[in-house]
Protein backbone atom coordinates (compact mmCIF):
# COMPACT_ATOMS: atom_id res chain seq x y z
CA UNK A 1 0.00 0.00 0.00
CA UNK A 2 3.02 2.25 0.29
CA UNK A 3 5.70 3.19 -2.17
CA UNK A 4 7.20 0.57 -4.40
CA UNK A 5 10.20 1.86 -6.35
CA UNK A 6 11.07 -0.61 -9.10
CA UNK A 7 14.40 -0.36 -10.85
CA UNK A 8 14.38 3.36 -11.63
CA UNK A 9 17.03 5.03 -13.70
CA UNK A 10 17.51 8.78 -13.78
CA UNK A 11 20.09 11.26 -14.93
CA UNK A 12 20.10 14.99 -14.40
CA UNK A 13 21.91 17.19 -16.92
CA UNK A 14 23.43 14.02 -18.37
CA UNK A 15 24.92 13.09 -14.99
CA UNK A 16 23.59 9.67 -13.96
CA UNK A 17 22.01 9.78 -10.49
CA UNK A 18 20.20 6.45 -10.23
CA UNK A 19 21.16 3.45 -12.26
CA UNK A 20 18.85 0.72 -11.07
CA UNK A 21 17.29 1.75 -7.78
CA UNK A 22 14.66 -0.37 -6.07
CA UNK A 23 13.17 0.00 -2.62
CA UNK A 24 9.92 -0.02 -0.71
CA UNK A 25 8.30 2.16 1.92
CA UNK A 26 5.48 0.69 3.98
CA UNK A 27 2.89 2.80 5.76
CA UNK A 28 3.07 3.53 9.46
CA UNK A 29 6.83 3.73 9.84
CA UNK A 30 9.45 6.42 10.36
CA UNK A 31 12.10 6.12 7.65
CA UNK A 32 15.41 7.92 7.68
CA UNK A 33 17.59 8.42 4.62
CA UNK A 34 21.29 9.00 5.21
CA UNK A 35 24.13 9.50 2.81
CA UNK A 36 26.89 11.86 1.78
CA UNK A 37 26.25 14.99 -0.30
CA UNK A 38 25.26 14.14 -3.84
CA UNK A 39 24.25 10.57 -3.05
CA UNK A 40 20.74 11.16 -4.41
CA UNK A 41 18.71 11.64 -1.21
CA UNK A 42 16.86 14.75 -2.31
CA UNK A 43 16.43 13.40 -5.85
CA UNK A 44 14.79 10.31 -4.38
CA UNK A 45 12.28 12.51 -2.53
CA UNK A 46 11.70 14.45 -5.75
CA UNK A 47 10.83 11.16 -7.43
CA UNK A 48 8.41 10.24 -4.65
CA UNK A 49 6.50 13.53 -4.91
CA UNK A 50 6.56 13.22 -8.71
CA UNK A 51 8.46 16.49 -9.05
CA UNK A 52 10.91 14.54 -11.20
CA UNK A 53 10.04 11.50 -13.25
CA UNK A 54 12.39 8.53 -13.69
CA UNK A 55 13.88 7.96 -17.15
CA UNK A 56 13.16 4.26 -16.83
CA UNK A 57 11.60 1.95 -14.26
CA UNK A 58 8.46 2.58 -12.30
CA UNK A 59 7.26 3.93 -8.99
CA UNK A 60 4.02 2.60 -7.58
CA UNK A 61 2.10 4.40 -4.89
CA UNK A 62 -0.82 2.71 -3.13
CA UNK A 63 -0.77 -0.01 -5.77
CA UNK A 64 -1.05 2.37 -8.72
CA UNK A 65 1.61 3.93 -10.95
CA UNK A 66 2.68 7.24 -9.42
CA UNK A 67 2.66 8.86 -12.86
CA UNK A 68 -1.11 8.27 -12.99
CA UNK A 69 -1.75 10.62 -10.05
CA UNK A 70 -2.38 14.28 -10.73
CA UNK A 71 -0.34 16.76 -8.71
CA UNK A 72 -3.53 17.85 -7.05
CA UNK A 73 -4.58 14.41 -5.85
CA UNK A 74 -1.03 13.58 -4.78
CA UNK A 75 -0.96 16.70 -2.62
CA UNK A 76 -3.72 15.18 -0.49
CA UNK A 77 -1.56 12.13 0.25
CA UNK A 78 1.98 13.49 0.47
CA UNK A 79 3.35 16.64 2.06
CA UNK A 80 6.90 17.85 1.62
CA UNK A 81 9.04 20.05 3.85
CA UNK A 82 11.79 21.18 1.49
CA UNK A 83 15.25 22.35 2.41
CA UNK A 84 14.91 25.47 0.29
CA UNK A 85 11.98 27.60 1.31
CA UNK A 86 12.76 31.01 -0.03
CA UNK A 87 9.44 32.83 -0.07
CA UNK A 88 9.71 35.99 -2.11
CA UNK A 89 6.48 37.78 -1.34
CA UNK A 90 5.40 39.15 2.03
CA UNK A 91 2.69 36.64 2.94
CA UNK A 92 1.76 36.51 6.61
CA UNK A 93 2.60 33.39 8.58
CA UNK A 94 -1.08 32.45 8.76
CA UNK A 95 -1.47 32.87 5.00
CA UNK A 96 1.59 30.69 4.42
CA UNK A 97 0.32 27.90 6.65
CA UNK A 98 -3.15 28.15 5.10
CA UNK A 99 -1.53 27.31 1.75
CA UNK A 100 -1.16 23.80 3.16
CA UNK A 101 -4.95 23.57 3.03
CA UNK A 102 -5.22 24.51 -0.65
CA UNK A 103 -5.24 20.87 -1.83
CA UNK A 104 -8.33 20.32 0.33
CA UNK A 105 -10.15 23.55 -0.52
CA UNK A 106 -12.21 24.18 -3.64
CA UNK A 107 -10.47 26.69 -5.87
CA UNK A 108 -12.60 29.74 -5.18
CA UNK A 109 -13.66 29.24 -1.60
CA UNK A 110 -12.40 30.68 1.64
CA UNK A 111 -11.07 28.30 4.31
CA UNK A 112 -13.92 26.60 6.17
CA UNK A 113 -14.00 25.77 9.88
CA UNK A 114 -12.07 22.53 9.42
CA UNK A 115 -9.33 24.29 7.46
CA UNK A 116 -9.04 27.00 10.08
CA UNK A 117 -8.84 24.38 12.83
CA UNK A 118 -6.03 22.54 11.02
CA UNK A 119 -4.13 25.78 10.54
CA UNK A 120 -4.52 26.75 14.19
CA UNK A 121 -3.45 23.29 15.34
CA UNK A 122 -0.38 23.37 13.09
CA UNK A 123 0.61 26.83 14.31
CA UNK A 124 0.17 25.77 17.89
CA UNK A 125 2.06 22.49 17.56
CA UNK A 126 5.09 24.18 16.05
CA UNK A 127 5.04 27.12 18.44
CA UNK A 128 4.64 29.55 15.57
CA UNK A 129 1.30 30.96 16.67
CA UNK A 130 3.09 33.76 18.50
CA UNK A 131 4.11 35.25 15.15
CA UNK A 132 1.08 34.23 13.15
CA UNK A 133 0.45 37.78 11.94
CA UNK A 134 4.03 38.61 11.05
CA UNK A 135 5.34 38.54 7.52
CA UNK A 136 7.20 35.45 6.44
CA UNK A 137 9.86 37.61 4.79
CA UNK A 138 10.69 39.20 8.15
CA UNK A 139 11.36 35.96 10.03
CA UNK A 140 14.71 34.34 10.73
CA UNK A 141 15.53 31.24 8.71
CA UNK A 142 14.86 28.99 11.69
CA UNK A 143 11.47 30.57 12.35
CA UNK A 144 10.64 30.31 8.67
CA UNK A 145 11.53 26.63 8.64
CA UNK A 146 9.10 25.99 11.48
CA UNK A 147 6.39 27.83 9.55
CA UNK A 148 7.08 25.67 6.51
CA UNK A 149 6.83 22.58 8.71
CA UNK A 150 3.54 23.92 10.09
CA UNK A 151 2.29 24.26 6.52
CA UNK A 152 3.05 20.58 5.88
CA UNK A 153 1.23 19.68 9.12
CA UNK A 154 -1.80 21.68 8.02
CA UNK A 155 -1.74 19.76 4.75
CA UNK A 156 -2.70 16.80 6.96
CA UNK A 157 -1.50 14.01 4.67
CA UNK A 158 -0.85 10.33 5.45
CA UNK A 159 2.70 10.71 4.12
CA UNK A 160 5.16 13.35 5.29
CA UNK A 161 8.49 13.85 3.52
CA UNK A 162 11.17 15.85 5.31
CA UNK A 163 14.16 17.01 3.32
CA UNK A 164 16.63 18.11 5.98
CA UNK A 165 13.68 19.84 7.54
CA UNK A 166 15.61 20.77 10.66
CA UNK A 167 18.78 22.08 9.02
CA UNK A 168 18.34 25.63 10.30
CA UNK A 169 16.92 24.80 13.73
CA UNK A 170 18.54 24.78 17.13
CA UNK A 171 18.55 21.45 18.94
CA UNK A 172 15.46 22.14 21.04
CA UNK A 173 13.36 23.00 18.01
CA UNK A 174 14.87 20.11 16.05
CA UNK A 175 13.77 17.63 18.69
CA UNK A 176 10.41 19.38 18.97
CA UNK A 177 9.71 19.04 15.24
CA UNK A 178 10.83 15.41 15.15
CA UNK A 179 8.72 14.62 18.21
CA UNK A 180 5.70 15.92 16.33
CA UNK A 181 6.61 13.82 13.29
CA UNK A 182 7.17 10.71 15.34
CA UNK A 183 3.91 11.31 17.22
CA UNK A 184 2.11 11.26 13.86
CA UNK A 185 3.69 7.89 13.11
CA UNK A 186 3.00 6.34 16.52
CA UNK A 187 -0.48 7.64 17.20
CA UNK A 188 -2.01 8.34 13.82
CA UNK A 189 -0.41 5.66 11.66
CA UNK A 190 1.20 8.23 9.39
CA UNK A 191 4.42 7.57 7.49
CA UNK A 192 7.46 9.84 7.64
CA UNK A 193 10.38 9.68 5.22
CA UNK A 194 13.10 12.04 6.35
CA UNK A 195 16.50 12.93 4.98
CA UNK A 196 19.02 13.41 7.78
CA UNK A 197 22.60 14.50 8.12
CA UNK A 198 22.88 13.73 11.81
CA UNK A 199 23.15 9.96 12.28
CA UNK A 200 22.45 10.09 16.00
CA UNK A 201 19.23 12.02 15.61
CA UNK A 202 18.20 9.69 12.80
CA UNK A 203 18.96 6.67 14.98
CA UNK A 204 16.92 8.08 17.85
CA UNK A 205 13.76 8.60 15.78
CA UNK A 206 13.70 6.17 12.88
CA UNK A 207 12.28 2.66 12.64
CA UNK A 208 14.29 1.98 9.52
CA UNK A 209 17.27 3.58 7.88
CA UNK A 210 18.35 3.72 4.26
CA UNK A 211 21.99 4.42 3.66
CA UNK A 212 22.67 5.77 0.20
CA UNK A 213 25.90 6.02 -1.74
CA UNK A 214 26.31 7.22 -5.33
CA UNK A 215 22.63 6.85 -6.13
CA UNK A 216 22.42 3.34 -4.84
CA UNK A 217 21.33 1.75 -1.60
CA UNK A 218 24.32 0.70 0.40
CA UNK A 219 22.32 -0.68 3.29
CA UNK A 220 18.70 -0.60 4.41
CA UNK A 221 16.83 -1.99 7.37
CA UNK A 222 16.72 -1.59 11.12
CA UNK A 223 18.87 1.06 12.77
CA UNK A 224 21.32 -1.42 14.28
CA UNK A 225 21.77 -3.30 11.01
CA UNK A 226 22.47 -0.14 9.01
CA UNK A 227 24.54 1.92 11.41
CA UNK A 228 27.58 -0.30 11.64
CA UNK A 229 31.20 0.60 11.77
CA UNK A 230 31.94 -0.85 8.33
CA UNK A 231 28.91 0.71 6.59
CA UNK A 232 29.69 4.15 7.96
CA UNK A 233 33.31 3.78 7.04
CA UNK A 234 32.67 2.75 3.45
CA UNK A 235 29.94 5.35 2.84
CA UNK A 236 31.23 8.40 4.69
CA UNK A 237 34.96 7.59 4.92
CA UNK A 238 35.00 8.24 8.65
CA UNK A 239 35.76 5.98 11.55
CA UNK A 240 32.86 5.18 13.87
CA UNK A 241 32.12 3.52 17.13
CA UNK A 242 28.52 2.37 17.39
CA UNK A 243 26.68 1.14 20.44
CA UNK A 244 23.36 1.08 22.21
CA UNK A 245 22.90 4.09 24.43
CA UNK A 246 20.41 3.68 27.25
CA UNK A 247 20.10 7.44 27.86
CA UNK A 248 18.73 7.99 24.34
CA UNK A 249 17.29 4.48 24.16
CA UNK A 250 18.76 3.98 20.70
CA UNK A 251 21.95 3.14 18.93
CA UNK A 252 24.33 6.09 18.87
CA UNK A 253 27.48 6.77 16.92
CA UNK A 254 30.79 8.37 17.85
CA UNK A 255 32.64 9.64 14.80
CA UNK A 256 36.26 10.37 14.09
CA UNK A 257 38.10 11.34 10.97
CA UNK A 258 40.26 8.56 9.62
CA UNK A 259 43.83 9.63 10.16
CA UNK A 260 46.41 9.65 7.40
CA UNK A 261 48.22 6.75 9.03
CA UNK A 262 45.08 4.61 8.89
CA UNK A 263 44.30 5.23 5.23
CA UNK A 264 47.80 5.62 3.98
CA UNK A 265 46.70 8.82 2.26
CA UNK A 266 47.73 12.36 2.88
CA UNK A 267 44.76 14.18 4.37
Amino acid sequence: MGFHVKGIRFSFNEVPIFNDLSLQFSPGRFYGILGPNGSGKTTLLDMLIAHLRPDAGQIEFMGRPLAGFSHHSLARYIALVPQDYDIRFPFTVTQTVTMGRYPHMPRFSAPDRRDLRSVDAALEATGTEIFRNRLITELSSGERQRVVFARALAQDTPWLLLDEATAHLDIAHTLGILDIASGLVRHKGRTVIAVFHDMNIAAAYCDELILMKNGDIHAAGSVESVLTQSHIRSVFQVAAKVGYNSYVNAHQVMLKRITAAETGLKS
Partner: protein
Amino acid sequence: MKKKHAGVEIRLFRGGWLLLLAGLLAGMIVLAAGLGQMAVPWTDVARVIFAKTFGHPSLFEGVGEVAAAIVWDVRLPRILTSAIVGAGLAVSGTVFQGLLLNPLADPYTLGVSSGAAFGASLALILNIGFMGTYSVPLFAFMGAELTLGFVLFLSSPRQTTAHNLILSGIIVTAILSAGISFLKYIADEQVSVIIFWLMGSFASKTWSDVGITALVLAAGLAVCQYCARDLNLMALGGRSAGALGVNVKRTSRVLLLSASCIAAVCVSVSGIIGFVGLLVPHMMREISGPDNRILIPFSMFAGGILLLAGDTVTRAILPREIPIGVLTALIGGPFFCYIFRRRQRRGKF
Protein backbone atom coordinates in the same frame (compact mmCIF):
# COMPACT_ATOMS: atom_id res chain seq x y z
CA MET B 1 -14.68 33.48 17.91
CA LYS B 2 -12.42 36.48 17.98
CA LYS B 3 -10.17 35.17 15.20
CA LYS B 4 -13.08 34.56 12.87
CA HIS B 5 -14.27 38.07 13.48
CA ALA B 6 -10.89 39.44 12.42
CA GLY B 7 -11.05 37.40 9.19
CA VAL B 8 -14.46 38.81 8.30
CA GLU B 9 -13.23 42.31 9.04
CA ILE B 10 -10.27 41.89 6.70
CA ARG B 11 -12.51 40.62 3.96
CA LEU B 12 -14.87 43.57 4.41
CA PHE B 13 -11.91 45.94 4.40
CA ARG B 14 -10.66 44.52 1.12
CA GLY B 15 -14.12 44.44 -0.41
CA GLY B 16 -14.50 48.09 0.57
CA TRP B 17 -11.26 49.01 -1.13
CA LEU B 18 -12.24 47.14 -4.25
CA LEU B 19 -15.60 48.90 -4.41
CA LEU B 20 -13.87 52.22 -3.82
CA LEU B 21 -11.43 51.63 -6.67
CA ALA B 22 -14.19 50.50 -9.04
CA GLY B 23 -16.30 53.53 -8.11
CA LEU B 24 -13.32 55.84 -8.55
CA LEU B 25 -12.66 54.43 -12.01
CA ALA B 26 -16.31 54.82 -13.07
CA GLY B 27 -16.39 58.39 -11.69
CA MET B 28 -13.18 59.28 -13.47
CA ILE B 29 -14.47 57.93 -16.78
CA VAL B 30 -17.51 60.22 -16.55
CA LEU B 31 -15.47 63.21 -15.40
CA ALA B 32 -12.74 62.74 -18.00
CA ALA B 33 -15.33 62.56 -20.77
CA GLY B 34 -16.42 66.06 -19.80
CA LEU B 35 -12.93 67.50 -19.89
CA GLY B 36 -11.25 68.81 -23.00
CA GLN B 37 -11.29 71.72 -25.38
CA MET B 38 -15.05 71.79 -25.17
CA ALA B 39 -16.19 71.27 -21.59
CA VAL B 40 -19.32 69.17 -21.12
CA PRO B 41 -20.97 69.03 -17.68
CA TRP B 42 -20.77 65.58 -16.10
CA THR B 43 -24.55 65.29 -15.89
CA ASP B 44 -24.72 65.57 -19.67
CA VAL B 45 -21.97 62.99 -20.04
CA ALA B 46 -23.90 60.60 -17.83
CA ARG B 47 -27.03 61.21 -19.88
CA VAL B 48 -25.26 60.52 -23.15
CA ILE B 49 -23.79 57.31 -21.77
CA PHE B 50 -27.15 56.09 -20.50
CA ALA B 51 -28.95 57.10 -23.66
CA LYS B 52 -26.46 55.31 -25.90
CA THR B 53 -26.14 52.16 -23.81
CA PHE B 54 -29.81 51.66 -23.05
CA GLY B 55 -31.21 53.25 -26.20
CA HIS B 56 -33.34 55.97 -24.66
CA PRO B 57 -33.09 58.90 -27.07
CA SER B 58 -35.37 60.91 -24.82
CA LEU B 59 -32.48 61.40 -22.40
CA PHE B 60 -30.66 63.37 -25.09
CA GLU B 61 -32.91 66.36 -24.65
CA GLY B 62 -30.96 69.38 -23.71
CA VAL B 63 -27.60 67.89 -24.71
CA GLY B 64 -26.30 69.33 -27.94
CA GLU B 65 -25.72 66.91 -30.80
CA VAL B 66 -22.13 68.07 -31.14
CA ALA B 67 -21.45 67.56 -27.45
CA ALA B 68 -23.00 64.10 -27.63
CA ALA B 69 -20.85 63.17 -30.62
CA ILE B 70 -17.70 64.47 -28.98
CA VAL B 71 -18.38 62.55 -25.80
CA TRP B 72 -19.51 59.30 -27.41
CA ASP B 73 -17.50 59.09 -30.62
CA VAL B 74 -14.28 60.88 -29.74
CA ARG B 75 -13.62 60.97 -26.05
CA LEU B 76 -15.13 57.78 -24.64
CA PRO B 77 -13.29 55.38 -26.96
CA ARG B 78 -10.02 57.01 -26.03
CA ILE B 79 -10.86 57.10 -22.34
CA LEU B 80 -12.01 53.51 -22.21
CA THR B 81 -9.04 52.27 -24.22
CA SER B 82 -6.63 54.00 -21.86
CA ALA B 83 -8.39 52.56 -18.82
CA ILE B 84 -8.45 49.06 -20.30
CA VAL B 85 -4.82 49.23 -21.40
CA GLY B 86 -3.82 50.47 -17.93
CA ALA B 87 -5.78 47.65 -16.35
CA GLY B 88 -4.29 45.12 -18.74
CA LEU B 89 -0.71 46.22 -18.18
CA ALA B 90 -1.21 46.13 -14.41
CA VAL B 91 -2.76 42.63 -14.45
CA SER B 92 -0.04 41.39 -16.76
CA GLY B 93 2.66 42.94 -14.58
CA THR B 94 1.21 41.35 -11.44
CA VAL B 95 1.24 37.92 -13.05
CA PHE B 96 4.77 38.34 -14.39
CA GLN B 97 6.10 39.41 -10.99
CA GLY B 98 4.48 36.39 -9.37
CA LEU B 99 5.55 33.98 -12.05
CA LEU B 100 9.14 35.12 -12.41
CA LEU B 101 9.50 35.53 -8.63
CA ASN B 102 10.95 38.90 -9.34
CA PRO B 103 9.49 42.15 -8.06
CA LEU B 104 11.21 44.01 -10.89
CA ALA B 105 9.50 42.04 -13.65
CA ASP B 106 6.92 43.81 -15.78
CA PRO B 107 4.84 42.97 -18.87
CA TYR B 108 7.83 43.81 -21.05
CA THR B 109 10.38 41.60 -19.31
CA LEU B 110 10.03 38.88 -21.91
CA GLY B 111 10.54 41.22 -24.84
CA VAL B 112 6.88 41.71 -25.69
CA SER B 113 7.32 45.46 -26.05
CA SER B 114 10.39 45.37 -28.27
CA GLY B 115 8.78 42.68 -30.42
CA ALA B 116 5.71 44.85 -30.82
CA ALA B 117 7.86 47.89 -31.50
CA PHE B 118 9.81 46.05 -34.15
CA GLY B 119 6.64 44.79 -35.82
CA ALA B 120 5.07 48.24 -35.79
CA SER B 121 8.23 49.89 -37.13
CA LEU B 122 8.37 47.36 -39.92
CA ALA B 123 4.75 48.02 -40.87
CA LEU B 124 5.31 51.78 -40.76
CA ILE B 125 8.49 51.75 -42.81
CA LEU B 126 7.17 49.37 -45.45
CA ASN B 127 3.98 51.36 -45.51
CA ILE B 128 1.93 48.21 -45.21
CA GLY B 129 -1.71 49.08 -45.52
CA PHE B 130 -3.61 46.01 -46.60
CA MET B 131 -5.56 46.06 -43.34
CA GLY B 132 -6.12 49.82 -43.30
CA THR B 133 -5.55 51.39 -39.92
CA TYR B 134 -5.21 47.95 -38.33
CA SER B 135 -2.01 47.08 -40.13
CA VAL B 136 0.27 48.61 -37.54
CA PRO B 137 -1.47 47.10 -34.48
CA LEU B 138 -1.63 43.76 -36.27
CA PHE B 139 2.07 43.79 -37.06
CA ALA B 140 2.82 44.93 -33.52
CA PHE B 141 0.78 42.07 -32.09
CA MET B 142 2.44 39.55 -34.36
CA GLY B 143 5.85 40.92 -33.48
CA ALA B 144 5.06 40.58 -29.77
CA GLU B 145 3.80 37.02 -30.09
CA LEU B 146 6.68 35.88 -32.28
CA THR B 147 9.15 37.39 -29.85
CA LEU B 148 7.46 35.67 -26.94
CA GLY B 149 7.55 32.37 -28.81
CA PHE B 150 11.24 32.80 -29.49
CA VAL B 151 11.99 33.75 -25.87
CA LEU B 152 10.16 30.65 -24.65
CA PHE B 153 12.03 28.53 -27.17
CA LEU B 154 15.36 30.04 -26.16
CA SER B 155 14.78 29.55 -22.46
CA SER B 156 13.70 25.93 -22.48
CA PRO B 157 16.20 23.47 -23.88
CA ARG B 158 15.63 21.38 -20.78
CA GLN B 159 13.50 23.18 -18.26
CA THR B 160 12.15 26.69 -18.15
CA THR B 161 13.20 28.59 -15.07
CA ALA B 162 12.45 32.17 -14.15
CA HIS B 163 16.12 32.92 -14.47
CA ASN B 164 16.34 31.54 -18.02
CA LEU B 165 13.22 33.41 -19.06
CA ILE B 166 14.50 36.76 -17.81
CA LEU B 167 17.89 36.28 -19.45
CA SER B 168 16.33 35.21 -22.73
CA GLY B 169 14.06 38.26 -22.60
CA ILE B 170 17.05 40.54 -22.11
CA ILE B 171 18.98 38.99 -25.00
CA VAL B 172 16.07 39.14 -27.43
CA THR B 173 15.22 42.70 -26.38
CA ALA B 174 18.79 43.78 -27.05
CA ILE B 175 18.75 42.26 -30.54
CA LEU B 176 15.39 43.79 -31.39
CA SER B 177 16.45 47.22 -30.12
CA ALA B 178 19.34 47.12 -32.56
CA GLY B 179 16.87 46.10 -35.26
CA ILE B 180 14.59 49.02 -34.40
CA SER B 181 17.56 51.41 -34.49
CA PHE B 182 18.43 50.10 -37.92
CA LEU B 183 14.87 50.57 -39.15
CA LYS B 184 14.87 54.12 -37.82
CA TYR B 185 18.18 54.78 -39.53
CA ILE B 186 16.92 53.74 -42.95
CA ALA B 187 13.48 55.26 -42.45
CA ASP B 188 14.20 58.81 -43.69
CA GLU B 189 11.09 60.92 -43.30
CA GLN B 190 9.11 58.02 -41.78
CA VAL B 191 11.32 58.13 -38.69
CA SER B 192 9.12 60.60 -36.84
CA VAL B 193 6.10 58.31 -37.27
CA ILE B 194 8.03 55.42 -35.77
CA ILE B 195 9.27 57.52 -32.87
CA PHE B 196 5.78 58.78 -32.15
CA TRP B 197 4.37 55.28 -32.21
CA LEU B 198 7.07 54.05 -29.83
CA MET B 199 6.28 56.77 -27.30
CA GLY B 200 2.71 55.61 -27.01
CA SER B 201 -0.55 57.43 -27.56
CA PHE B 202 -4.28 57.00 -27.17
CA ALA B 203 -5.15 59.69 -29.70
CA SER B 204 -7.87 58.76 -32.21
CA LYS B 205 -8.78 55.43 -30.65
CA THR B 206 -12.07 53.96 -31.80
CA TRP B 207 -14.76 51.74 -30.35
CA SER B 208 -13.22 48.75 -32.09
CA ASP B 209 -9.99 49.36 -30.12
CA VAL B 210 -12.11 49.35 -26.97
CA GLY B 211 -13.76 46.12 -28.06
CA ILE B 212 -10.57 44.24 -28.92
CA THR B 213 -8.66 45.24 -25.80
CA ALA B 214 -11.68 44.60 -23.57
CA LEU B 215 -12.18 41.15 -25.06
CA VAL B 216 -8.55 40.10 -24.63
CA LEU B 217 -8.39 41.58 -21.14
CA ALA B 218 -11.56 39.77 -20.08
CA ALA B 219 -10.34 36.44 -21.38
CA GLY B 220 -6.85 36.87 -19.93
CA LEU B 221 -8.19 38.08 -16.62
CA ALA B 222 -10.47 35.05 -16.34
CA VAL B 223 -7.51 32.71 -16.83
CA CYS B 224 -5.27 34.63 -14.42
CA GLN B 225 -7.94 34.79 -11.76
CA TYR B 226 -8.59 31.07 -12.18
CA CYS B 227 -4.89 30.34 -11.64
CA ALA B 228 -4.36 33.02 -8.96
CA ARG B 229 -4.22 30.54 -6.09
CA ASP B 230 -1.67 28.42 -7.93
CA LEU B 231 0.32 31.57 -8.56
CA ASN B 232 0.43 32.14 -4.79
CA LEU B 233 1.93 28.68 -4.33
CA MET B 234 4.52 29.33 -7.02
CA ALA B 235 5.99 32.00 -4.75
CA LEU B 236 7.23 29.03 -2.70
CA GLY B 237 9.26 27.68 -5.62
CA GLY B 238 8.42 24.98 -8.13
CA ARG B 239 9.12 22.05 -5.85
CA SER B 240 6.88 23.19 -3.02
CA ALA B 241 4.19 24.36 -5.42
CA GLY B 242 4.19 20.92 -7.01
CA ALA B 243 3.97 19.22 -3.63
CA LEU B 244 0.96 21.41 -2.85
CA GLY B 245 -0.86 20.22 -5.93
CA VAL B 246 0.11 22.64 -8.71
CA ASN B 247 1.06 21.37 -12.13
CA VAL B 248 3.83 23.93 -12.28
CA LYS B 249 4.84 23.42 -15.89
CA ARG B 250 1.36 23.68 -17.32
CA THR B 251 0.18 26.49 -15.05
CA SER B 252 3.21 28.66 -15.71
CA ARG B 253 2.85 28.16 -19.48
CA VAL B 254 -0.84 29.10 -19.34
CA LEU B 255 -0.16 32.16 -17.19
CA LEU B 256 2.79 33.30 -19.31
CA LEU B 257 0.74 33.08 -22.46
CA SER B 258 -2.31 34.87 -21.04
CA ALA B 259 -0.32 37.65 -19.41
CA SER B 260 1.74 38.13 -22.56
CA CYS B 261 -1.34 38.20 -24.79
CA ILE B 262 -2.84 40.93 -22.63
CA ALA B 263 0.42 42.89 -22.78
CA ALA B 264 0.78 42.35 -26.53
CA VAL B 265 -2.69 43.60 -27.34
CA CYS B 266 -2.19 46.62 -25.05
CA VAL B 267 1.11 47.52 -26.67
CA SER B 268 -0.25 47.03 -30.16
CA VAL B 269 -3.10 49.53 -29.73
CA SER B 270 -1.27 52.11 -27.65
CA GLY B 271 2.46 51.87 -28.23
CA ILE B 272 4.94 51.37 -25.43
CA ILE B 273 3.78 52.60 -22.07
CA GLY B 274 6.21 51.81 -19.31
CA PHE B 275 6.05 51.68 -15.53
CA VAL B 276 2.31 51.00 -15.19
CA GLY B 277 2.88 47.26 -15.18
CA LEU B 278 5.82 47.60 -12.82
CA LEU B 279 4.53 50.19 -10.41
CA VAL B 280 0.87 49.33 -9.90
CA PRO B 281 1.38 45.79 -8.52
CA HIS B 282 3.90 47.21 -6.06
CA MET B 283 1.59 49.93 -4.82
CA MET B 284 -1.34 47.56 -4.55
CA ARG B 285 0.62 44.87 -2.72
CA GLU B 286 0.91 47.38 0.15
CA ILE B 287 -2.86 47.56 0.44
CA SER B 288 -4.06 44.12 -0.56
CA GLY B 289 -1.13 41.96 0.50
CA PRO B 290 0.58 39.52 -1.85
CA ASP B 291 -2.39 37.13 -2.28
CA ASN B 292 -2.87 37.17 -6.05
CA ARG B 293 -6.58 36.37 -5.81
CA ILE B 294 -7.02 39.85 -4.35
CA LEU B 295 -3.98 41.55 -5.82
CA ILE B 296 -4.99 40.93 -9.44
CA PRO B 297 -8.38 42.72 -9.26
CA PHE B 298 -6.85 45.50 -7.14
CA SER B 299 -4.12 46.04 -9.71
CA MET B 300 -6.60 45.96 -12.54
CA PHE B 301 -8.66 48.84 -11.19
CA ALA B 302 -5.64 50.83 -10.04
CA GLY B 303 -3.92 50.42 -13.41
CA GLY B 304 -7.03 51.64 -15.18
CA ILE B 305 -7.33 54.65 -12.89
CA LEU B 306 -3.67 55.56 -13.23
CA LEU B 307 -3.41 55.41 -16.98
CA LEU B 308 -6.75 57.11 -17.49
CA ALA B 309 -5.61 59.91 -15.18
CA GLY B 310 -2.33 60.21 -17.06
CA ASP B 311 -4.02 60.30 -20.43
CA THR B 312 -6.57 62.86 -19.25
CA VAL B 313 -3.80 65.10 -17.95
CA THR B 314 -1.95 65.05 -21.24
CA ARG B 315 -5.14 65.30 -23.35
CA ALA B 316 -7.15 67.89 -21.51
CA ILE B 317 -5.08 69.65 -18.89
CA LEU B 318 -1.59 70.20 -20.29
CA PRO B 319 -1.34 73.00 -22.84
CA ARG B 320 0.29 70.65 -25.30
CA GLU B 321 -0.14 66.89 -25.53
CA ILE B 322 2.84 64.90 -24.23
CA PRO B 323 3.16 61.28 -25.41
CA ILE B 324 1.62 59.14 -22.68
CA GLY B 325 4.60 56.75 -22.59
CA VAL B 326 6.88 59.70 -21.81
CA LEU B 327 4.53 60.97 -19.11
CA THR B 328 4.25 57.60 -17.33
CA ALA B 329 8.01 57.17 -17.39
CA LEU B 330 8.64 60.72 -16.14
CA ILE B 331 6.23 60.35 -13.23
CA GLY B 332 6.50 56.61 -12.66
CA GLY B 333 10.28 56.41 -12.74
CA PRO B 334 11.01 58.77 -9.86
CA PHE B 335 8.07 57.39 -7.90
CA PHE B 336 9.44 53.90 -8.31
CA CYS B 337 12.81 55.13 -7.05
CA TYR B 338 11.04 56.39 -3.94
CA ILE B 339 9.23 53.10 -3.32
CA PHE B 340 12.41 51.17 -3.96
CA ARG B 341 14.39 53.20 -1.42
CA ARG B 342 11.69 52.98 1.20
CA ARG B 343 11.32 49.22 0.81
CA GLN B 344 15.04 48.67 1.03
CA ARG B 345 15.19 50.63 4.24
CA ARG B 346 12.46 48.43 5.65
CA GLY B 347 14.26 45.36 4.34
CA LYS B 348 11.27 44.14 2.39
CA PHE B 349 12.87 43.55 -0.97
